[in-house]
């Protein structure tokens, strides 16, 4: 893995500057059945294709952001800060 990732604050950087935070998922509401939490804690979609993920710019601005990355090719289509969710393309 050596692709470039565009931090919304710092621009395009080597992926080694970042920490991977897993796929973006919706945490169940506190009222949800325990099974929903089991699924949330243990299961991943493990998608082959484009998915939204969390990344943390450990070697830079120290900000968490979301990236749309192809798990097949590592092509990154879009990155955005969580507060800019409405810009999701």
């Amino acid at each position, binding site marked *: 893995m050596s692709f470039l990732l565009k931090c919304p604050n710092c621009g395009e950087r*080597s992926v080694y500057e970042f920490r991977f935070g897993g796929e973006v998922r919706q945490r169940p509401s506190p009222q949800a059945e325990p099974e929903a939490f089991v699924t949330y804690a243990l299961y991943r979609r493990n998608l082959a294709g484009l998915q939204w993920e969390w990344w943390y710019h450990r070697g830079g601005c120290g900000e968490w952001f979301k990236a749309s990355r192809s798990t097949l090719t590592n092509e990154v289509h879009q990155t955005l800060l969580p507060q800019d969710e409405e810009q999701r393309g």
Partner: protein
Amino acid sequence: MEEILFEWNGNTVTAKPGDTVASALYRSGVRTFTWSYQYGRPRGLLCLTGSCPNCMVNIDGVPNVRSCITPARNGLSVLAQNQNVYRGFDSPAVKRFPAAPPLSESPHHYQHAYLQFDVVVVGGGLRGLEAALASAERGVQVALLEKQPALGGDSVLVEEVQSHPMVTTFLNCSCFGLYEGNLLGAVQIDYDRPNAETLLHLRAGSVVVATGAYETQFLFANNDLPGVMLSTAVLRLLHQHAIVPGKRAVLIGDTARCSQLQADLEAAGVEVAASLPIGSVVSAVGDDHVRGVATETVTYDADLVVMCGPLVPDLGFLAGTLPQSVSLVGAAAGEGFTNQAYIPPPSSQSKNAIACLCMDVSGHDVAETIAGGMGHIELIKRLTKLGKSACQGRMCQTAAVSLCSQISGQTIAQVGTTVARPPAPPVTLGVLAGMRHHPVRRTPMHYQHDQLGAVWMDMGDWKRPRYYDPAGAGNQEQCVEQEYRAVRERAGIIDVSTLGKIEVKGSDAGRLLDLVFTHKFSTLPIGRVRYSVLCDEMGTIVDDGTISRMDEQRYFLTTTTGNVDFVQQWLEWWAAAAGMKVNIINLTAGLASMNLAGPLARGVLAQLTGCDLSSPAFPYMDWRQATVAGVPATMMRIGFVGETGWEIVVAADYGSHLWEQVLQAGASVNLLPFGVETQRVLRLEKKHIIVGVDTDALSNPYEAGMAWVAKFDKPDFIGRAALARMKQSPLERMLVGFELNGAIAPSDGSPVLVEGKPVGWATSVRFSWEKEKVIGMAWVTPAEAKHGAPITLRWDDVNYSAQVVEEVFYDPAGQRLKM
């Protein structure tokens, strides 16, 4: 002329300037450079371009160095390899040479460099020079990589490239892989120092591959005898090193190249006995060196056999589909040459026709594998090991594919090739590892500890005093006991600056802490401190610490020493995911903190501050800000070690001043500084856990005996659902205290046995001066988790009997903390 002297198997060899180690050895008469790995067949120079495995030697302790691309230098110690291999029951006596020194004892300088260029040109031959100049003329930054010590091609162009301000040239630099995002891995060797290599991480806008083509061998019986060479080797010996490679030569293969070579050889005074098509060759003749070539009808005497073999573009460092920004030029793109079609001679299926020189795979082995039904080229590779070693298939691929095509009747294209897998050429593990770099973190009081006789221990990057040995007597137990007694009977102080310190502030600060910790913090009164644990969604304890409410929207957190980055990122992630308005700041490096504890601690601290320290004014689990020893400080009344005590936090710059002042103020009561080892005994007597020591990656609060931390007084927190489920489920194991019979403390981590069967392990075991016994904590099954249950610890093949103890070992009522 300057003379270069180096050692070959203990003998001195003389080299000329411009010589490689291989050319110097050849000039001095060496013909056998190594013996093959499997069968110990003698091997001599073959390609001289760094492509084959035949010239690999041990240089200054580094094995498998290609001597043909390594410049000869003064003082090298060169050893032949593979001399002690087993050569069968009736083999001649094994040749013995001095053993190679272990690599760890050899000097080395491995480092990494990170560079960016608009264009990277790989290969400094004619086409590489042209490409580099063309890009440089467009005004972009160009890197030109050449694996040999000099650029080649055209002397006018070389000068132009070397004087061009936009071109940076890297010599002795092999590119071993092209990775995602046009990241090129290359190793540049500095031959002026032993084992000095730099790993270049080159990020390129675009890449031009001008690596040319390499020549490969033909397959026939005894094709691996010393003296059977590729034409590249002969040309280099003749023209680069001015060495006449033999007296009488036979040329085999490509007619055009053979006739060119014949002219060159004859000009150098070498007689050319014959020029043969490969199909007519039956075998090379000879024992330790070639003596001739046999066809069906004639045997030509010769001491040199030259193969003008098939040419293959040198693209081993490329894998998969190339991005558009990568272009191939020249011979690397297959331009400028065509390989003559040839039929491998019948002897190519002989046991003495060696296809894979690295692993001694013969044409016979390949034919057998195909006959066995495993004719796919990838299967042949996996079954025979062909192409899986040092030359990475360079010498064997073409020969194996031709043979495979001949036997199976498929075309060359149908047979295909095996998948290229960089790194190619091979890379030393040393340069991948890079420099030895161990960052060390020291607290502001580090040098005071040193003067006090600290015996150090590593905690992550931090140095912490394990205990103090002011007399230098080397008796750990005595030192720890003195420190222990100081804390329990008088007062002690420990540097806790390494603990993580995080400030969380903002309008959602309380809401965030309510979400991530098991306890409720939005209702914690200002001025109070609370201990809590962080759980993940599985209910596993991931960290613990204290949280102090500083004001309405500001909290101060401590974390365990190694976990501060994790906790910070964890908090930041939940804040980001929930869109909370908070600022999370890691203050660890900016603050110094120390824990002053013991029955006389109050009197010591009172000498330094006007703050009312009495329990009614400053109760347990409160914090106050006041001036201490003349500097602004935050004091938190907490008690990890089980005595009345204060954790005093000041700006890092004041740390050493405050430490000194506390020691002076405590001198009258014989206050002692104490280390981590003493703290571990003190807290063990209180059964205070250390996350990561007493807990592991699966421990939950219920089994850790900390059910009280799982509060369900708020609708949601991370791990709530899991903890609610656990609360109603039977436990699988429990963390319990125990007392051991006997004075020897088994090691932490010793297995716990019941009736001879392992049921868990001991997490912490120490001698307790309170109990006058060895005590500890251990994971056991619920059946043993009751007071008095007998358990056995096993350590170093000895059994130690112990009993489970339910109560806390020291001050079970917790009164001393609140005095």
